[in-house]
């Protein structure tokens, strides 16, 4: 497996790609906070937020619908909000029958449901764009600048660095299980559920030991290359004038969105 197998970064020479990762992370978070603050049914603000998002998409040169195409990941979770359709008191919109019980969708409930979906949809798209235009190590570095404790950013950096190695390990384990699980037609391979769970557990235990021992080797390799408890970077980020202007502009736009949301 290649080292960037998990990467969501798309190499381009765009305006957004060149922005300081701190700015991108900060604006993304402010945008998502702003979405959470918007009242239900703030259509004007939602549209404004969407325009902001499309503008960001265009600036990234990834194409106008780039994030839209990848934004369906959060949709299954919408199920959890579906009950508000029926439980919030309001004028009944329509009633339908399911499993011998009646469900009445109210206008207030519908408004709330759609608002939750839009908020979530806008937010997830901005987060998708963030990792598409920022290299993950740069993003981790930005988090460090934004005062996330070094121990956490270092663990995250290691996690990212070794994830593909351990995924290879998992695939080897899964392949080994497959190749030992021969089945004849009509007969399933393997024992009962408990037996299968134990096999999976042994695989997890095996993976743990391999990872543990690998971390020892990694540490020794790092020591021999001069590791003293600190990680250094060659890619020192520096805020340019452009970065400050963009942050200021984004704050203004998001603030205007908030005001629009209250009309």
């Amino acid at each position, binding site marked *: 497996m290649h080292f960037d*197998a998990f990467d969501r970064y798309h190499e381009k020479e765009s305006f957004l790609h060149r922005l300081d990762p701190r700015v991108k992370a900060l604006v993304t978070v402010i945008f*998502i*906070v702003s979405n*959470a603050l*918007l*009242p239900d049914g703030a259509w004007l603000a939602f549209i404004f937020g969407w325009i902001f998002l499309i503008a960001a998409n265009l600036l990234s040169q990834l194409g106008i619908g780039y994030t839209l195409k990848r934004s369906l*990941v*959060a949709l*299954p979770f919408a199920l*959890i*909000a579906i*009950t*508000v359709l029926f*439980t919030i008191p309001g004028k009944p919109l329509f009633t339908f029958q399911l499993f011998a019980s009646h469900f009445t969708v109210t206008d207030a409930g519908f408004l709330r449901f759609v608002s*939750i*979906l*839009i908020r*979530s949809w806008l*937010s*997830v798209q901005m*987060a998708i764009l963030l*990792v598409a235009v920022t290299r*993950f190590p740069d993003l981790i570095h930005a988090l460090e600048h934004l005062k996330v*404790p070094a*121990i956490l950013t*270092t*663990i*995250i950096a*290691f*996690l990212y*660095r070794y*994830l593909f190695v*351990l*995924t290879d390990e*998992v695939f080897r384990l*899964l392949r080994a299980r497959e190749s030992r699980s021969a089945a004849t037609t009509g007969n399933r391979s393997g024992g009962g*559920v408990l037996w299968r769970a134990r*096999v*999976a*557990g*042994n695989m*997890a*235990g*095996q*993976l*743990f*030991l391999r*990872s543990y021992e690998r*971390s020892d080797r*990694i*540490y020794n390799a790092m020591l021999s290359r001069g590791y*003293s*408890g600190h990680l250094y970077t060659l890619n020192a980020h520096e*805020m340019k*004038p452009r970065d*400050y*202007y963009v942050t*200021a502009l984004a704050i203004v736009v998001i*603030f205007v969105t908030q005001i629009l949301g*209250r009309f």
Partner: protein
Amino acid sequence: MLYSPVQPMHIPDGFLSLAISIICWVITASVLGLAISKTNKSLGEKQIPLMGVMAAFIFAAQMINFPVAGGTSGHLLGGALAAIVLGPWAGMLVMTSVIAVQGLLFQDGGLVVMGANILNMGLVTAAVGYGLYRSAASQSKSVKLGVAGVAAWLSVMTGALLTSLQLWLSGTSDLQVVIPAMLGVHALIGVGEALITVSALAFIIQTRPDLLAEGSESAKGSRNWVFVGGLIALVVVLFSPLASASPDGLERVATDMGFINASQSAPYSIIPDYTLPFLGETAISTILAGVIGVIVVGAVIVLVGRGIKARA
């Protein structure tokens, strides 16, 4: 597919109100602060690469599954296992990193609600898992493993219960539906978690017993963990049946205590009519709203100013 979300517990952005998100972030940040100071004290530089690789291990181990029936499969979430093999504080940091990467890189779970996700899947799972497991520290191996299974199952249930409560307090879900649904689904997911955790532990005890003995903390620290984990587990055990049987009752308690309104309506209009709702329509409220406006304008001016300065 390299990465497919396995847990129906990762809350995306937009599903929790800002107030609940912030409260969860505050709790998560305090616990993590404690965890960081504890780990910094007790662990050497060697532990950093170890914890990093262990975080990758939990991430990768979540890809291991076993078929159950009808196309469904059992998975490992790993909170209890991480805490048992690495110790509670290190386990929490490892789980936090896993959840952070899932949210940041794969959008599995939101960014502003990440505090809640870390709390539900990283912190309480580790506390419950480790606390209960430690309570059987002096018992025989099979008792220990049995307790570990119960601990793993309860850790998943605790996370699911917390998630449901947060969704309900945000006004996203109805209590009468979300609690039985979440707890019902996770009762099954928890069984998979328990089975994998127990057999993984059994495997480790058999092949490298030194790893588990080595990671044990001082007896005094353990007692506190047993207390904390046991307490949370007890609350979940007593609370869940109660909540599922009569969610109306819970809703009434919340109404009586007055925090259902605070949590459901206020967050969506922090500054309506330029007053802050939790202060009422008083002069102070208007002044504070004004102050927030000033801060926003000030931030913009400072940023533009720094831009000009950086250019010079």
